[in-house]
């Protein structure tokens, strides 16, 4: 079935996007990425470690940008200014690559997005030609404003980053999907496979996760579980679920031709 995720005009066959943080080593990162089937992978931009041997293995060796679509993020940025600078560095680092993940955080305890700074950064980045996939709260009004600015995907949290609490407010995700036309991708909060399936059954275009895979006891097995759950949830969404009904009993087997009861 030809059911691709289209972001900024580019087509992806996987609707699962994954982070590359928190793995025990680069080999595990790569094995988990391969098991997840993800094509888009997030990376962070950080100062080089000046004391370290520059020839040590790097993420770029284990996860070559020629095989994966890098999505540089602005994790750790608390102002629009820092986020914009970080992504300008990312674009230079990745030879003009313009697809980015914008996130501007509000506080270090919750990592909840600061939507005021996010809106400001999004405006600047879009005007500079970046294709911005934006992490935001599950506020449908802000989501629409981010789309109007020109963001190419809206990525609301389902619960706090790294919490694994799952899809806490499916109704807000629905409100967002009712209002925006660009892909809506759940970013943050997924804890296990059923969460990914629920997000996809709701009609989300994709899910982005890191800790749910890297923080599992067996990250590689969880990566493959997430691949299946994302695909299963998407298929269920496309299939169109049966309506929920509390009673109105409707047996699946014929009601006629049942043998006679011997009790009178």
């Amino acid at each position, binding site marked *: 079935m030809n059911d691709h995720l289209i972001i900024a005009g580019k087509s992806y066959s996987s609707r699962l996007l994954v982070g590359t943080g928190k793995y025990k080593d680069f080999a595990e990162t790569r094995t988990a990425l391969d098991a997840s089937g993800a094509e888009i992978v997030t990376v*962070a931009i950080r100062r080089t470690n*000046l004391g370290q041997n520059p020839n040590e293995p790097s993420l770029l060796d284990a996860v070559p940008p020629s095989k994966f679509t890098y999505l540089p993020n602005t994790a750790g940025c608390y102002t629009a200014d820092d986020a914009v600078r970080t992504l300008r560095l990312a674009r230079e680092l990745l030879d003009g690559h313009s697809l980015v993940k914008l996130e501007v955080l509000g506080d270090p305890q919750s990592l909840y997005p600061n939507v005021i700074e996010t809106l400001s950064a999004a405006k600047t980045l879009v005007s500079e030609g970046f294709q911005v996939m934006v992490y935001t709260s599950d506020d449908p009004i802000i989501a629409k404003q981010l789309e109007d600015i020109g963001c190419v995907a809206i990525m609301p949290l389902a619960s706090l980053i790294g919490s694994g609490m799952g899809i806490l407010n499916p109704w807000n995700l629905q409100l967002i999907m009712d209002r925006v036309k660009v892909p809506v991708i759940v970013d943050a909060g997924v804890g296990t496979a059923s969460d990914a399936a629920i997000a996809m059954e709701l009609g989300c275009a994709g899910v982005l996760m890191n800790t749910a895979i890297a923080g599992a006891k067996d990250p590689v097995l969880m990566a493959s579980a997430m691949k299946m759950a994302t695909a299963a949830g998407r298929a269920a969404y496309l299939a169109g679920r049966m309506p929920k009904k509390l009673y109105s009993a409707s047996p699946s087997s014929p009601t006629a031709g049942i043998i006679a009861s011997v009790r009178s």
Partner: protein
Amino acid sequence: MITVYVNGTARQLADDCNITRLVDELGYSGKRIAIECNADIVPRSLYAQHILHDSDRLEIVGAVGGG
């Protein structure tokens, strides 16, 4: 000599040192990095002609694992 700040750490450099030379001294030649000087991007193509000045603040970054 001039003093510049690389990723927050003071570093002495010869007068008229350009970014190509700094990158070389740090062992980053041919490595995938990006550099910002005083909050402005310095494109790779301009490393050789970009002369550093006293008190310049440089950020040198790479890609690392992240979510």
